């Protein structure tokens, strides 16, 4: 019963908005989240919950797959470091509010020490410890050996390496050209562009949230919700045929999920207007094209003019930086928008031009 409830909750339709709300709450109340008390309570609750999860044979069989072990390590580390940053930032922000400045700026923290042995020696420790850890890991969890690769008979589910599963999850919502080429390209390009866009000199060398609210929110949303969360979905909740399976659900090869997706042009021309699809391709997709262009072209100037925050941002960044930044943010938010449209309207493509290999 409870398990079925968890299974239902895990479906991206519910879990994605839930995780977004949780993300918002975490940042809004970061001073509560970033306390040791909060960490202790969370750990105390999470341990029995984890044990309960592990007691389920279906969940356990997914977890124990050698491929999935790095992801579990990743989850624990991401959780810890996110909290650790919040803790440090909350501490500093409280000090800054009190006019004390961050801890990192105190005289004792600013003292200089020798590179050798303080840095180099400890780096060597890390190397040795890491190598020993990897050796033990390799001994205990053998590389899984499967059947010889057959190009005419793909394994099902065919999964990318774990670090690409977020991208693979995007394939559910986007055309391969977008999910596989354009968006990953923008992620890389955007990350490279960050130092040139970010003009905020604060937060250098110390933890803070208050002084870099927007930068941190934008980055963490992309990282935690649009990347890590999608990896979790891709690893643990996608089974044969890339169908969704709850964490306690048996990966039944024959599970069928009803989905019949329709293009925006079909919704408007056929369902709403009741006329056939126009022959002309551009005319046929005109609504999608207008919407997409409006999304990219109209929103940034409107945001800069009509809202206070936008005006402030525009002024602090300057026109070029502002437009690049807005473009990147809009591309990032296109993913959740597309997900929601899919769930609400079974929308396949906003612009469907397979004739030009252009599907948005």
């Amino acid at each position, binding site marked *: 019963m409870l398990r079925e409830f968890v299974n239902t909750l895990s479906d991206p339709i519910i879990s994605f908005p839930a995780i977004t709300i949780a993300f918002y709450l975490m940042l809004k109340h970061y001073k509560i989240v970033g306390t040791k008390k909060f960490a202790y309570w969370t750990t105390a609750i999470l341990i029995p919950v984890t044990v309960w999860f592990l007691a389920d044979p279906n969940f356990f069989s997914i977890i124990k797959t050698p491929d999935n072990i790095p992801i579990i390590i990743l989850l624990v580390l991401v959780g810890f470091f996110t909290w650790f940053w919040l803790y440090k930032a909350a501490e500093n922000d409280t000090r800054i509010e009190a006019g004390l400045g961050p801890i990192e700026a105190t005289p004792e923290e600013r003292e200089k020490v*020798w590179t050798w042995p303080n840095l180099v020696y400890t780096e060597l420790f890390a190397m040795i410890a890491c190598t*020993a850890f990897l050796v033990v890991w390799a*001994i205990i969890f053998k590389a899984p050996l499967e059947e*010889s690769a057959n190009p*005419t008979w793909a394994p*099902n589910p065919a999964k990318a390496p774990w670090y690409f599963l977020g991208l693979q999850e995007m394939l559910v919502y986007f055309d391969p050209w977008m999910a596989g080429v354009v968006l990953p390209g923008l992620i890389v390009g955007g990350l490279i562009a960050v130092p040139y866009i970010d003009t905020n000199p604060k937060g250098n060398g110390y933890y803070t949230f208050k002084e870099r609210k927007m930068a941190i929110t934008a980055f963490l949303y992309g990282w935690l919700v649009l990347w890590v969360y999608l990896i979790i979905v891709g690893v643990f909740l996608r089974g044969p045929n890339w169908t969704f399976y709850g964490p306690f659900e048996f990966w039944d*090869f024959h599970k069928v999920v009803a989905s019949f997706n329709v293009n925006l042009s079909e919704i408007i021309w056929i369902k709403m207007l009741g006329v056939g699809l126009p022959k002309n391709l551009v005319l046929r997709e005109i609504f999608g094209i207008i919407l997409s262009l409006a999304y990219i072209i109209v929103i940034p100037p409107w945001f800069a003019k009509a809202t206070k925050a936008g005006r402030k941002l525009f002024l602090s960044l300057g026109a070029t930086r502002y437009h690049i930044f807005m473009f990147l943010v809009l591309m990032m938010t296109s993913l959740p928008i597309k997900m929601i449209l899919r769930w609400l309207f079974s929308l396949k493509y906003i612009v469907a031009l397979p004739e030009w290999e252009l599907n948005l």
Partner: protein
Amino acid sequence: MSENKEPGMAYSMPKLHKVMAILSFIFFVTTVWMFLDDYIKPWKAIQIEALQIKRQHTEDALKAARKDIDAKKLAELNSSLAKGEEIVISRKKDIEKTEKELKVVQTKMKAQTIENGVFNGDVSAVNFQYETAVANHDHKLIEKKLEELTKLKAGFDIGKDNLKALQAQEKEISAKLLELYKEVVTSQKEIKDITMKVTLLEAAKATTDFNPIFALRNMPFLDYLDPTIKIQQLVINNVTDDRYFRQVPKVDRCTTCHTFIDQPGYEKEKQPFRTHPKLDLMVGLESKHPMKVTGCTACHGGEGQRVTDFASVAHTPDSPKQEQEWVKKYGWKAPHHIASPMFSRSQTEAGCVKCHSGVELIPGATVLNEGRMAIEKNGCYACHKIEGWGENKRKPGPSLLKIAGKVDKEWFKSWVWEPKSFNKHAKMPAFFRQSNNSKPEFVRLNVTEVNAIAEYVWDKSKPYAATETFRPGNAENGKKIISEVGCLGCHGVDGLEDQSNKVKAYAGPWLSGLGSKVQPDWLVTWLKKPNHYQEDTIMPSLRLTDGEANDIATYLLSLRNKSFEDLKFAKFDLKARDELLTDYLSAFDTQASAAAKVAKMNDREKTLDLGKRSIGKYGCFSCHNIEGFDGFAPIGPELTKEGSKPLTQFFFGIQHQVPHARDGWITAHLQNPRMWDIGIDKVFRDLNRMPNFYMNEAEAKKITVALLGQTSDVVPLAGRKRYSAGEALYNDAMKVAGKYNCMGCHQIDGLRGDILRSYADDINQGPPRLVGQGHRVQTDWLYHFLQSPTPIRPWLSIRMPTFNLSTEEKNKIVAGFQQGSKQPTFEEPQQVVQWEPGEREGAVKLWNAYNCVSCHSIGFTKDTPLAPDLHKAAKRLRPSWIKLWITNPQNILPGTTMPSFFGDDGKTPIEPGVFGGDAEKQINALTKYVLEFGL
């Protein structure tokens, strides 16, 4: 941090060193662990155990060998050796002198060899320079080089000559030396002859020593050089693994653990050390499938390259019990990610198929053959194409082209509805009253279909008039005739259950309740002349007299199934008929327009249309000849590659109790094909249609083996069994023999001979076994005999029937049998027997002495014959076979009544007085004598 921190330091140095020490230790431990993990492998322990087993066996053999040595003789030899040594010592001076001479000569030879070698090189080099000069027309150089070359060649010739002289000298001196040592050498050689086996075994035992050298060779780090404990592998070039887009030779490492698989003497060891159980056929060096050529996984399947552990090679347990045992003993796990796991032990014969294709029965593959016979019996091949051996076979069911002349329509419907309720032995499978179509709404439609089928078949049935009239005769006599003349070779018969169950005949139907089924006149006509009713029937004529035929018919008609007779089949539901037709037509049309189309048809059209569609739906035409279905493809999926069909393509439905494996599915499917529909919501037209044969598990498992062998594996031509022209002809002959069920009566070259099972007490009362038949009989005779058999053994009550063989089929049998026995078409034609002087008199003496006429009495005495008429032998038998037969009949037909006159070796006549006891001469004379009668 701590107080002993130096300036410019974040940490205290001694503390850092401590951390370093701990980390180094951990790193050291993990490194050692890594090497050990790499070094300690399960197969190494097995090889060490194998070494101990081998040592034990060698020691046992050594003990036995030592016992075998004649101690007394050895002592004698040793003393004569001592004596010899004394004598040799007395010649010490001579020996020393001769040895010195030998050494001088050998030194000279060595010097001469070096000199010759230099000459040889020089001659070749100068020769090249000379030839170059000739090619360049450099006359000056030519002269110079020619001179040089001539000189060198002369020197080389002298050197070679010198060497020959020295060699002769050496030989002479050596012989002299040997003469001086003579006494010792002789004794030594004799001692060596006796003790050789022991010496060899001792050497073998030494290879199993656990000594420092063994330890060194197998030490970690050093074991890459020349270890004794190592992975063994066979590379099988003639059988390949499909690595997609590339066929790679098979690599089998099974012998890494199955250490003695090819060595006799380890039959009683536990696994994996046991010898192969069929060494004479498989794996053995002398067998047809030597290990180095065939390997292991070519037949057994599985992952031959893996030696990781027991489970990884995909060993497959044979029973749940074995599975439990393996789980406990080896930590066995069901293989994942392996397309073709190993065949379980009882299924191993499936591995024969991929190399032995195009042959009906494979000698030695008992289970596989039984599986194929079961497929033959049930007629699976009619609906499912099985390439390689199942094609071009007759339709397993009787023709329905003239059915109206044979049975009653009402009977037909009840029979189709549930064949087993009429005859529990019925081979016709059940289509109706199954787990997936027993809902009332489905039954209503099924009944309608059966009615429509009957209407269609009767509408198309051609008129038939019986040529004979039934006159009631003696049923008891009829029963006796049935049991004696050979009917039971193909039919089981009610009332003769004992015999029938022994024979297990399957070519024809089990005869039961005929009185409730067929028209009497039809039955008599059928018995007398089967092809009058069905032209292509395999039912032969037994040349019954009118009396016999009527007696048999009387008996068969007395078998009745009263309760079945009373059955009244449900009335034709015309509404259901129209519904079904509408459903068919709406496949490509709307319901309304389909209904309109149906409404436009007249009554007869509707009935016949539904009848034809139903016959097509259930595939009746696959087994029965029905008009209107020429060129229709059989309805079942092809099974040619069933053994390689991916597991994901098998539909298990919700039958979780069925083992999730190919064999598990096939076996379950054969036992109840409709089970997959259970719990699945399906509309009428989508219901599973495979009929239920009510097969028992044993039979289903045999068929499973036959089907598992049908893989898509591509075996290179060199690895496949390729039939010579002769073998191919023999195969063709066996196919014809299979079609007409010859082997229901005759055992052919050791295969089948079903009816012989009811002649267990005297095999000679049964139909003759055919061994090397192509050698036994003459070509012409066999051809004519097949056409119109004449009795050879009048004392037998069983008869050779007259088959309705085509000329081609007769020729196939004749030619194939000849080729099977590797015989030419004709032996030297013998018109007159040529006697040597005095030979005929000898032959007559032998004839009388061996009292041939006591059995071969026909034409000689009035006694009841117990052996064939020898007057016919000359035209029937091949002379070379007669000789072979006389020499040792038991060799050809074990248990024959023909006595052996020449002992087991065929060389010691029991009548030594004739021809001085020369067996060959006696046999020749007797053969000629026999031939003389007939020519």
